[in-house]
C-alpha cells in the first residue's frame, strides 16, 4: 500500500501538470468544501500521529489552536537532521506538491493565514525544487489569495536554515525562524498557544502534512483501517547502516521490524549479524538482535524501552564495536547542544570526555557507573529533549552491552600501558583525568 510513495519516481511528478493529472489538489478542493471543524474531525478520526519523532496525535494538536481572528501561523518542519533520517528529503524532492497541498489543507483546517516551510540549509536541491513548486502553485491559485475560489487565503514562505540539528526541535526552530540563535524555549507555553512571533502556531513534520491530502480524499475512517490500533496508516522508514539495500521504504505500521530490515533492506552483508539497531534515529535507545521480531509501531517500541521516533532504522552489525558507535553519537550531541541549559551543555561534553578517557586507556569499569548516572541526571532535566536524545541511547548501550564495554576498557588500558613502556622518552601517562 503506497500512499506517499505512490509512483514517486514518475518523471515530472514535481511539476504541477503531472501532479494535477494524477489527481493532485483534489484533497484540497474536498477540504475547502467542508467546514474547518469537519476537516479537523477527519484528521482526528484518521488517528494520524506526528511523523517527525514525537508521534503526537495530529488532529489533537491542530485543535489546540485558539479559534478567532488573530495572527496564526503554520510551520512545516523540514529541518530533517536526526541522524539516519532521510525520508522527508525524498518526498520534497520528488513530490513537492503533495506537501504544498497538505499545508494548504492544514491552513484551512486551523484557519491560518501565514505558513512557513523551514527546510535545512543543506537540502539545497530539495529547497530549489520546492521553491519552483510553490511558485507554480501560486500561479495556479492553490496558494495565496482566495484559494480555489473558496475565500480562504494563505501565504507560503520557504525559509532555508543554515546547519543546526537543534533547529529541528520545534521551539528551537521557532527561535531560528524569528532570526535568532536556535535556542529552544520552555514548554508550557506550547507553540499552539504561544509560538512564532508569540502567536498561536501549528508545527508539523513534512510527512505528517504530506499525508493529509490522502486522509481527506478517502476519509479519516478509511485511513484508520491501515496499520494497527493506535498506530494507524503508513510510515516512510529510512533504513541505513550495515544493510545491503539502504533507502526509504513506505510500510504499513505494525509489520515486524525483521521484515523491514531483512525483507526490504536485505539485512547485513553475508557472514555478518546484527549487533544492535536504532529503531527511531540515533536518539532512540538501542535494541538487540532478539528484538528484531517486534512489530514496528509506536506503542510496541515504546513498551520495549525504545521509540519509533522519526522512523529511521540504523543497523549496526558485529564488525563494529559498541564503543565506536557511542563515541560517534556523543560527539554529535556534544557538538549540536545549543548551550542554553546546564545538564545538556555540561552533560554532553562530560560524557564525551568520559568516552575519550576510555579510548585513551585511562578508564576503569567504574567509569561506566559514572557515565550511566550522568545519563540518568540528564534525562528529564533539560530544557528540551536533545539531552535525552543522547542520554537515552548511551544509557541503553551501557545497560545492554556492559561486558563488551568493560572489555574495551581493559583493551585500551593494556594498549596504553604498552605504548607507555614502548616510548620511554615520552612523558608518563597521568592516571588521573587529563
Amino acid at each position: 500500500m503506497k500512499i506517499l510513495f505512490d509512483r514517486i519516481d514518475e518523471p515530472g511528478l514535481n511539476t504541477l501538470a503531472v501532479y494535477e493529472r494524477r489527481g493532485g489538489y483534489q484533497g484540497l478542493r474536498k477540504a475547502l468544501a467542508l467546514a474547518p471543524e469537519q476537516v479537523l474531525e477527519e484528521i482526528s478520526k484518521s488517528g494520524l500521529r506526528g511523523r517527525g519523532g514525537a508521534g503526537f496525535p495530529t488532529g489533537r494538536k491542530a485543535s489546540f489552536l485558539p479559534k478567532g481572528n488573530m495572527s496564526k501561523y503554520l510551520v512545516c518542519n523540514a529541518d530533517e537532521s536526526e541522524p539516519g533520517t532521510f525520508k522527508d528529503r525524498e518526498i520534497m524532492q520528488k513530490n513537492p506538491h503533495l506537501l504544498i497541498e497538505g499545508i494548504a489543507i492544514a491552513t484551512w483546517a486551523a484557519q491560518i493565514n501565514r505558513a512557513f516551510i523551514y527546510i535545512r540549509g543543506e537540502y539545497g536541491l530539495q529547497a530549489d525544487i520546492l521553491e519552483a513548486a510553490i511558485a507554480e502553485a501560486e500561479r495556479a491559485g492553490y496558494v495565496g489569495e482566495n484559494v480555489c475560489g473558496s475565500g480562504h487565503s494563505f501565504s507560503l514562505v520557504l525559509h532555508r536554515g543554515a546547519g543546526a540539528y537543534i533547529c529541528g526541535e520545534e521551539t528551537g526552530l521557532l527561535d531560528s525562524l524569528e532570526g535568532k540563535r536556535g535556542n529552544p524555549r520552555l514548554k508550557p507555553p506550547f507553540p499552539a498557544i504561544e509560538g512564532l512571533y508569540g502567536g498561536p502556531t501549528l508545527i508539523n513534520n513534512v510527512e505528517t502534512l504530506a499525508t493529509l491530502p490522502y486522509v481527506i480524499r478517502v476519509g479519516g475512517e478509511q485511513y484508520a483501517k491501515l496499520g494497527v490500533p493506535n498506530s494507524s496508516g503508513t510510515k516512510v522508514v529510512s533504513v541505513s547502516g550495515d544493510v545491503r539495500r539502504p533507502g526509504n521504504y513506505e510500510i504499513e505500521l505494525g509489520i515486524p521490524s525483521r521484515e523491514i530490515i531483512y525483507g526490504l533492506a536485505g539485512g547485513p552483508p553475508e557472514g555478518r549479524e546484527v549487533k544492535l539497531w536504532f529503531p527511531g534515529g540515533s536518539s532512540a535507545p538501542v535494541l538487540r538482535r532478539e528484538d528484531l521480531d517486534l512489530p514496528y509501531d509506536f506503542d510496541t517500541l515504546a513498551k520495549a524501552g525504545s521509540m519509533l521516533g522519526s522512523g529511521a532504522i540504523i543497523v549496526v552489525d558485529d564488525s563494529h564495536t559498541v564503543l565506536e558507535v557511542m563515541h560517534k553519537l556523543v560527539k554529535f550531541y556534544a557538538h549540536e547542544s545549543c548551550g542554553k541549559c546546564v545538564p545538556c551543555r555540561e552533560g554532553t561534553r562530560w560524557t564525551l570526555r568520559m568516552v575519550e578517557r576510555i579510548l585513551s586507556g585511562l578508564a576503569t569499569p567504574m567509569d561506566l557507573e559514572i557515565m550511566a548516572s550522568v545519563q540518568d541526571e540528564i534525562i528529564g532535566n533539560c530544557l528540551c529533549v536533545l539531552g535525552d536524545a543522547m542520554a537515552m541511547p548511551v544509557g541503553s548501550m551501557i545497560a545492554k552491552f556492559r561486558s563488551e564495554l568493560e572489555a574495551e576498557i581493559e583493551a585500551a588500558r593494556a594498549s596504553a600501558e604498552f605504548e607507555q613502556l614502548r616510548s620511554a622518552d615520552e612523558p608518563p601517562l597521568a592516571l588521573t583525568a587529563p
Partner: protein
Amino acid sequence: MSATRRFVVPRFGHGSRVPGWDEAVSLDKPPAEIPDPALTPVPEQLRAEIEAAMARYPDRHSAAIPALHAAQRVHGYLSHEAIAQVACVMRVTPAYLTSVATFYDMFSTTPKPTHDVFVCTNITCSLRGADRFFEAMRRAADGEDIAVRSFECLGACDIAPMASVDGTYVGPLSDEDAEQIVADIKAGRSVLEHKQLRYRRCADPGVGQEPTGLKEQPK
C-alpha cells in the same frame, strides 16, 4: 576505530579543551552600533536580496539567515565588512548578526577557500567508512582552493559514505572518488555525475505498482 590505536585527546590553546576561549577581545572599544548607511557601501545586488528577504516575513529579523547566506556568497565568508553590510541594510547591530552567524555550521566568520566539500562523518556514514574517506579527501584536496570539513548527518544515509560538494550530494564514495571530486571541481564540471543523489531512484520496490485506486482526472 579499535582500542589498540592510541587515542589522542584534542586540545587547543594552553592545553584547553575549549577552542577560542583565549582569542583576544578588546575591552576598550565601545560596542559597535547599527552601521551608518553613509559610511557603509553595500553592493546593489546584495542590498536587493536582503530587502527582498526582509519583505517576506512579518518581522525583518527573520531575514537574518537568508541575508547572511547571501552575504557569504558575495564575500566568500562572513567578514566584518560583510556583517556590517548586512547589519546596515537590516538596521541591526553587527553583534546580533555575529551571534547568529556563529551558531550555524554553514556560516564561516573566518576566511575560507571557495569550494566546500562537507564529508558526513556521523554515525551511519562512519559505519560505512566515512572517516577513512574523509582522510583521503583531505589528502586529495591538500593545497587546493577547497575546504574539506567533516559534517553532521546530511540526510543521505542511503548513499553512505557521502559528501556534499558545493551543495551537491554525491555517494556512495570510495577513496578513489576523492581525486575525481577535486578534478571535477577544478575543471568546473558537474561533480561525480554518476554518483549524484538527484538521479537516484527510490529504493522501495513497490513504488511502480498500481495506483491507490483514486480517480486520476480532476473533477
